[in-house]
């Protein structure tokens, strides 16, 4: 198993005729994702990489049948409207790729999605990848590089950084340790799915035997993960890295979520919470594979199995 995306999920691409939408559709198709089609208002009847294009999500669903996920490649100012359209049309899971989506738009989406029972990933996410199965979004760049960089295995990666999630998966794969799913939750302060929520999904996933959590300063997501470990709701071993140790308080760095204010969301607090809960926190990002290897060699928590 894996979480969120695999080769059985049917994906719709909103904004499929745009530069990003079109090139990432190709990545998804070539990597093995079932992309059913796409939509862009006013472009019905066109084809992109052989896929049908519709005017609206509703129309696409009527023609294509059930869709599991909508990958939304619509620029930030229109991302909210696109997501609302997908929720309205009854798509159960969305991925918002756009960077710089206004915070109040995200807050509104959270409320509407919660009421409709819809989940979303992002905004400001590069997406989700289950190596050797399927990719949602833009992780890996091209199918060729993605295939050469990431191996399938038993480590689940949940990250607030897109680059570092791919990087962690690459260095793990290089060390002979494969990955079940890589989830980039997004770099913003308010997100659809958060690190703790993804961690809980990995806990339920039979293929995932160890979690790598890549956090950074700002927000309370890492503290919440530590809380879940404390409560016993996450029992799989967790290796964590927190970025931004040296960042100055009160300055917002390039991720909208990366800011320490009023003493909240600081590096030290996160590390202490996680360590206290029993997670292994590495100081250097490059130490992640070795730490996971130690856990692997110790047979994880619950005996043998495929890496």
């Amino acid at each position, binding site marked *: 198993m894996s979480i969120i995306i695999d080769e059985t999920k049917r994906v719709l691409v909103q904004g499929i005729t745009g530069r990003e939408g079109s090139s990432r559709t190709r990545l998804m198709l070539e990597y093995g994702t079932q992309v059913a089609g796409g939509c862009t208002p006013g472009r019905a009847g066109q084809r992109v990489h052989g896929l049908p294009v519709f005017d609206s999500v509703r129309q696409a669903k009527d023609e294509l049948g059930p869709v599991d996920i909508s990958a939304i490649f619509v620029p*930030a*100012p229109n991302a909210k409207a696109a997501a609302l359209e997908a929720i309205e049309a009854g798509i159960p899971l969305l991925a918002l790729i756009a*960077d*710089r989506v*206004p*915070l*109040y738009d995200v*807050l*509104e989406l*959270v*409320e509407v999605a919660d009421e409709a029972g819809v989940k979303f990933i992002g905004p400001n996410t*590069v997406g989700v990848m289950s190596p050797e199965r399927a990719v949602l979004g*833009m*992780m890996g*760049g*091209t199918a060729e*590089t993605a295939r050469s*960089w990431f191996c399938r295995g038993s480590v689940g990666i949940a*990250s*607030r*950084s*897109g*680059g*570092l999630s*791919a*990087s962690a998966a*690459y*260095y793990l794969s290089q060390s002979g340790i494969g990955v079940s799913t890589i989830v980039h939750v997004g*770099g913003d*302060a*308010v*997100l659809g799915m*958060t690190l703790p929520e993804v961690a809980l999904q990995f806990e339920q996933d039979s293929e995932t035997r160890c979690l790598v959590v890549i956090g*950074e300063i700002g*927000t*309370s*997501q890492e503290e919440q993960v530590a809380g879940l470990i404390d409560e016993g709701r996450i029992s799989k071993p967790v290796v964590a*890295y927190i*970025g*931004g*140790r040296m*960042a*100055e*308080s*009160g*300055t*917002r*760095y*390039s*991720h*909208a*979520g*990366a*800011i320490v204010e*009023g*003493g909240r969301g600081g590096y030290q607090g996160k590390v202490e919470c996680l360590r206290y809960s029993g997670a292994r926190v590495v*100081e*250097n*990002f*490059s130490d992640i594979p070795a730490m996971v290897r130690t856990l692997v060699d110790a047979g994880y928590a619950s005996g043998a199995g495929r890496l």
Partner: protein
Amino acid sequence: MVLKAQVWGTGRAGAGGIRFADSPAETAAAASELLSTTIHGSPVDLLLVEERIQFEREYYVGLVVDDQQRRPVLLLSTEGGSGIEQRAVTRPETMTRLAVSIRREPAVPELASALHRTEIPSGLQEGLARTLLSIYQVARRSEARIAEINPLACTNEGKWIALDCRILIDDYAVFRHPELGIDIAREFGHPPTELERIAWTVEKDDYRGTYYFVELADNPGTGTRIGFHGAGGGGSLASLDAAQRAGLQPANYTDTSGNPPASKVYRAARIILSQPGIRGYFLSGSGVASQEQFHMARALVKAFREDRPGVPAVLRLGGNGEEEAARIIRDYCSDLPAPVEAYSKAYQAEACAARLKELIDRSTADGLGFHAVVAPERPPVAPKLYAFETRTGRITYDHAVCVSCETKACVTNCAPGILSLEGDLPVLNITREDARRGKCIECLACEVECWFQGKGAASIELPIAGLDEYRKKVRSEK
């Protein structure tokens, strides 16, 4: 009177930023004293002078966007004033919290009923409920991440007065709020510096990719001062940490991410190189980037060849196209005054930071020369210029030189394929208008490849408003 230093950040009272005065003379004296001080590292240049109000109690009313509840949360404390953040932690019982909907404005009775549970005298509850509603409306209207009135005072006559307030607007929403007059949509934690203003002009109207530049506080004695260039938010933060662990002290935090054009990366590099006293240049992102790294490499080649820094550089260009990126750096920077080294994804940020430290320790240079551009040698013929505008610059080919070029590297390396040969000469195969509107993606390949594979006939001007003046000033101060 009360005089309050208007500085960025909280906790002014503890830092001596608030004074009281009983006469005009005292007010003037306190004002000139305050205006000569520095609070949280920033000189005080603005004061709020207001009437000293007699009140019994200070309240705090605010709205913050809570990342865990993913809702706006209204906050009310019966113990407002300075030090509210600490009290919220040490005595949480003094703070009432109420999560509200972003879509449905809370009604006054609803807010008032939330106050019934508190020890606030019932006569004051409605006034406070109305203030809570006001702060909700202000925050909602201006898309604030944080909006707070602190302190909020109730006079003996029962009148509510906001004695001070603070608001942080969501950077991403600033474009929808011209009425707020925010000139730089960035939370720096300090008033923007001259160089940060220059950097913002590069980012402001160019939505291709994202460019951040913030100067970091100078902490002498904590490491060797370097220019820092990250690529990708999380990877940048991690690389910043790796640099500092290696004994390097970044003078700035720069992030060029989201697949920016080479022109933007070039400008970012030149702005980094404008910082006085840096002894090295460190570029590092996630190391396994999905963007093509050779665009970035050409941007750096152009910046480094124009500025010819006398200090070493380590460039971690890992990911798609990393072999080509490494070749470009290796072949096109070898004649520069100081070493410029490129590394692939096989090298982690920690190793690259350590390598830069080693190069710096070995070098004898102290700071940057801002050397002039050394133009490639060209045949002594009268120029015959062919020029066109791009989104943010201007490209010129000297056709008098192009005649003798055998490789036509400008055409073969043009990423969007907008150049063709007309006879023997490179020209646009699209309209000038299309080139200007973005069909020319400013990948800089025609110029950089022409320097080395061609005859040096191409030149690209990418102005950075205010940078030359800034550099002149820095040099004269030195």
